């Protein structure tokens, strides 16, 4: 669109004559020759664009090219031919997975259910723990004592998943002829929480215990570290708020209810929304390292399903179709959660 006539001519106050407005000419030029303008800007600022290239390439090669491989979930799997030359299979893999009847679809639905349940239980049990811990940290008045508590509870976060799962495996391992069971199983059976036979068989071989072990080890690993963000919100509360509440006669519970909770509510909401958004994005490593053939019933999640069929087995098309469905739903959840967070709190997570 062209500008108004007045934009083109400007009055030169010293000579009293009109002359062409150079800025508008440039503006016009940009509109008429957009790509020329783009080219000029890039040439002028070429260093900036060169700096961006490595990032763009890394993400192109190892984040976006894999998405091209997703085509494989619509094509007949072939070990030799690249995905572009494989024959189209349409939606047959999706149909096999979704529609009942085959063992594959039973396994897939079980994996979907387990994925959801592991996250959901994490939301119910794992999510409140850091908040409770942060409230407790706030009660410890001595700085030294609090640091000791904090260091001890952050500690497990410093283990890698492999070390953490190795430790868990050893603590609840099965007993054999030559050696006893893990120390934790021993303790649990001594206090009567589980029977001796169950403990002897190894808790990780028992599908009834997988979810419990997964959640408890999750709390052990990250409750302390996750409490940092809530504790930061609590110590940001001004002491005058407590004093005002005390003068009004609020006891401890009332202070919790009317001072602390409202102050950390926005943090809780953001964290909760993020958590709900990632309900289906469960880390595969931990499950992969803790599960075994005996516990597929409760432990197998979609990514481990894909790993088993696609990487160990040869059903690459089926496996990537399964994970794609999971990831698409997961993405919608994340975007939805982010939109809600933005509306509710002005803070966008990404």
């Amino acid at each position, binding site marked *: 669109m062209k500008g108004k006539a007045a934009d083109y001519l400007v009055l030169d106050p010293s000579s009293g004559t009109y002359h062409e407005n150079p800025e508008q000419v440039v503006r016009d030029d940009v509109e008429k020759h957009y790509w020329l303008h783009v080219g000029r*800007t890039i040439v002028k600022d070429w260093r900036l*664009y060169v*700096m*961006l290239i*490595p*990032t763009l390439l890394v*993400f192109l*090669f*190892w984040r*976006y*090219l*894999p998405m*091209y*491989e*997703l085509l494989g979930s619509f094509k007949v799997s072939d070990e030799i031919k690249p995905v572009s030359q494989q024959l189209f299979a349409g939606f047959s893999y999706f149909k096999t997975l979704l529609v009942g009847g085959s063992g594959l679809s039973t396994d897939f639905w079980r994996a979907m259910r387990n994925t959801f349940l592991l996250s959901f239980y994490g939301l119910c049990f794992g999510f409140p723990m850091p908040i409770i*811990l942060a409230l*407790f*940290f706030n*009660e*410890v008045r001595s700085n030294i004592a609090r640091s000791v*508590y904090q*260091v*001890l*509870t952050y500690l*497990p976060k*410093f*283990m890698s*998943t492999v*070390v953490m799962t*190795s430790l868990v*495996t*050893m603590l609840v391992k099965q007993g*054999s002829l*030559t*050696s*006893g*069971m893990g120390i934790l199983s*021993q303790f649990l059976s001594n206090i009567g929480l589980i029977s001796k036979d169950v403990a002897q068989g190894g808790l990780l071989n028992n599908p009834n215990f997988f979810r419990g072990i997964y959640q408890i080890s999750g709390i*052990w690993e990250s409750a302390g570290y996750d409490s*940092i*963000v809530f504790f*930061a919100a609590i110590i940001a509360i001004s002491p005058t708020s407590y004093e005002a509440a005390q003068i009004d006669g609020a006891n*401890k519970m009332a202070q919790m209810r009317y001072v602390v909770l409202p102050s950390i509510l926005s943090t809780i909401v*953001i*964290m909760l929304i*993020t958590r709900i958004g990632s309900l289906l994005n469960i880390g595969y*490593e931990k499950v992969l390292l803790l599960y075994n053939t005996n516990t597929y019933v409760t432990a197998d999640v979609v*990514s481990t399903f894909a790993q088993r069929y*696609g*990487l160990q087995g040869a059903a690459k098309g089926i*496996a990537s179709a399964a*994970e794609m469905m*999971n990831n*698409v739903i997961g*993405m919608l959840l*994340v*975007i939805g959660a982010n939109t809600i967070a933005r509306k509710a709190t002005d*803070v966008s*997570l*990404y």
Partner: protein
Amino acid sequence: MKRKLEISELIFKVISYTLLTVFALGCLYPFVYAISASMSGRHAVEYGEVVLFPKDVQFNAFRQMFNDNMFWNAYSNTLFLTIYGTIWALGVAILGAYALSKKRLLFRKFFNFYLVFTMWFAAGLVPQYLNYLATKSVFNSIGIMDDKWLVVIAMGMAAMNIILLRNAFENVPSEIEEAAIVDGATEFQVLSKVFIPMSKSTIATVTLFFAISRWNGYFWARQMISNQNEHPLQVFIRLRLEQYTDPEFMAGWNEVFASDSVIYALIVCSIVPILIIYPFIQKYFAKGTNAGGVKE
């Protein structure tokens, strides 16, 4: 006048201290047990006589491990992956974040979306696996036969870290940048002399994130590194665990120390270096969680 402690306050305090102590000790106990079990005698470990303190102290499990070349190999491989992987990822991320932090960058919105989308949607294990295989054959064809370099270059980039850096760079006052440009600084000098020194703490945090993900990396390292001598520590620990918890292997075990002690010794040795540097990095580690609220 000191206010009297109310009864409800007192109860809450007692509960807090009790539960905190229980939880903190619960967090600590597995480590203490691992240390004790790694240095106890065979009978004591196998029959659950070690509960808190070591019994029949001996260090044969550690001796066996330190004499194992594979262990040192694994350690040096992990150091290799961590050091080179962090340098590579950090270099790419700093350059990219700097460019993205500039308002004058054309198509800035598109580039941001290009990164953020990868946080929303991942192709999944199988496509990624096929992609890494393709990368591997390309690397081999240009003469890089070492799978370690594949892991260094192809894995471990995270969009979140770039965005953290970008936000830090955006917070650098533009007057300082303009002053540097007036003084004749080139783009690269502006980055290295102004932006990097002014965002030191974020860079430290991001470096830590990269280093931790490299140090802990397991799955892809195991999938993609075919040569056993190139396995990093995490893969080594896992393979040992699988081997040592195999009933047949355990039945044939005839050392003076328990086979479990070897696993515990491995766990202890993998945690100790982290505990040593923990006091120095704790500050940055804690800072990272507060970076959650990111604006676009």
